[in-house]
């Protein structure tokens, strides 16, 4: 099932499918390790529509909902778990 990262509830995990848009924002996400196939966990969502705290590759990232809406994610299925995925 494909969703956007911004729609995830806190505590939910998902796998990055693709990043929409381009330019500096996309490159920034790439530098921070958000590439297709990476597992993400939404830790918490700041109140009043504030940013999301996301865990990936063992570290924490804060991202605005607007940016999260550019990241399409899929549920983590078995096939992906078998891969040597680095994120916990």
């Amino acid at each position, binding site marked *: 099932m494909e969703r956007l990262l911004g729609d995830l509830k806190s505590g939910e995990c998902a796998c990055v499918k693709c990043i929409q848009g*381009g*330019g*500096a*924002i*996309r*490159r*920034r*996400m*790439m*530098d*921070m*390790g958000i*590439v*297709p*196939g*990476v597992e993400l966990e939404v*830790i*918490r969502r*700041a*109140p*009043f*529509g*504030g*940013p999301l*705290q996301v865990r990936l*590759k*063992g*570290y*924490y*990232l*804060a*991202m*605005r909902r607007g*940016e999260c809406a550019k990241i399409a994610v899929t549920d983590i299925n078995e096939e992906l778990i078998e891969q*040597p*995925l*680095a*994120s*916990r």
Partner: protein
Amino acid sequence: MKIALVGNPNVGKSTVFNVLTGSNQQVGNWAGKTVERKSGIIQRANQTIEMIDLPGTYSLTAYSQEEIITREYILRENPDVVMAMVDASNIERNLYLVLQILELAPRVVIGLNMMDLAVSSGLTIHTAELALALNVPVIEIVAAKGKGIEEFLDEAIRVGTLSQDPLPRKVPYPQALEQKVRAMEGLLSKNPWATRYPLRWLAIKRLERDPEIGQDWKASAPGISQSKDSCCDTGYGVSYELLKTTSLPGEELLETYEAEGWSKDHFEMAFADAKYQYISEILPKFRTTINPGKPTWTDSIDAWALSPIWGYPIMMAVLGLVFWGSFVASAPLGGAISQGMAWSAEVIVRLLQWGQAPEFIQSLIRDGIFAGVGAVLAFVPQIAIFFAFFSLMQDSGYLARAAFLGDRFMQLMGLHGKSFFSLVSGFGCNVPGIMATRTLEDPKDRLITMLINPLIPCVPRLGVMSAVVAAFFPGSRGSVVMLSLLMLSMFLVMVSALFMRRVVKQTERSAFVMELPLYHIPTLRNVLLPTWQKTYSFLKRAWTFILVASIVVWFLSSYPQGVPMQATWAGKMGGWLSFIGAPLGFDWRIMVSIVFGFAAKETTLSTLGILYGVAANASQSIAQAMTGAMTPLNAYTFLVVYMLYIPCLASVVTTYKESGSLGWTSFGVAYNLILSFIMGWIVFHGGQALGFQ
């Protein structure tokens, strides 16, 4: 030998740098940028080593100023060895940068830091296996305890003196990509550029259509400035001049690929993807996970510090502590400095009297130089303590949390979460508030935050305002009036931010993608050293301006001699300017006090005291004297203008130094002046229309 220290932000780079260089540091700015440039000279094994601490960066692409600097330095200065610091608790993202460096500069030593944090989150990194997997020497270090740092340097020197470049393992790209890299390599191999940079790196960058490839730059400045001042010279580093741009071969090939759907973006993504893929492939060789689900320190603190209910009260408490420490607890120190200055002025004046120096020189020394400079020096303890708290918050990781919590409000103004702390600091003093904008990555965001910061009333201004409010609006009305003023300031900050966003041209809005680093306890040295450097550089930058301004203000306010205040030059200026004040219901006295307030706003009350003929220095009695001459509406208008116009000379000087632009500084000053008078006009006439007196 030139050694560059590179790594992600928050990996402990500056700790290592401070341990290695000790007091032989030169701190300044990178040419044309407001990013700190730190270099130092070390003597080891008969070698003179120039060590440079490059700004923390996540990659070698060009995103933020920091990344551009790091990349340009490695590309153009070609350091002999790169010491790459890696955070063991976050090794995947850290290795991404290392792989990028390895493609560009093969002489690399990895310093593996924060093993303790890794262990506490259930990870073990096997150093030997990591070294084997990458074929790069790896040294374990505990930067905070100073362990392994000498070994790290020794290894770097050893790698630097090797006769041949070592061969680190290459990142294997997928078949389709590897073919394209090879094809490009074939085209570029005979090009003279291939002798300057590794061929593979050149081919990759050519495929990414990196604009820097093919550009010749000439360094036009001294390498290391041998300044007499060992601590903190301005250290303006090398600046570059573009000599010529050669177009490299391969344009046709690039067009063919583009037709096949391999655009510049596609290549960038594919290379990044392959690097991460490679890291996750080699990861099991050197990292073992024990007990993964265990919550770490950071998890437990964040459960409170970022909680929707407790997060904001905790932040208020932390900020309250910072404010109390910097602006309340430091007051005796500031007082002592003013007294010391007054005392030394007295001593010098006595000496001058003994030496029969003319009266005006005595006055210049006492009322001009010592009074003016002393007024600014009295703020130095505040600024120093504030910087200590600032370093503490930044190093411990809490600053990023404050940005996380404050981001929602900043978003309303079109600003970045990191602007939040700068703006909040403005309530203490605008000078450190403006200097705190350095944490912002995007130069445009930084400029906007800097320009709107003066609209926030600082502690001295709030003090004067509350004295005036208490005199005109006694009892509970006072707090309503004060609150309305603060609300107005907030509203204008917000509107101005949105306005500035239109004025300051920005090609691309910066993304709010910010790391929340793991919490850790900063070392004392890492807190105190930057505090000292920042305070020193503030004084060093500002003292000439402040000295000159003090003399000018003294001159304007004491000449022609022996006349009442309104007949001095400054008094006349106030008189000339009364045509501006008239529509706001201001008389010449208010205008004079506004002119005098430019040097430092806390002097406004004493100026008014003299003008209204109140001898006593007590702020209450001055304000009481004003009540006879002004209506409450006049007073409210005065408060609005007073709150909004330029905070003080020091803040203007700081804006100039931090923005590096005279144009933007003048724009900011003009904006403040015009805005304050327009608001005053609206309040005065609006108030009259509504029937207030």
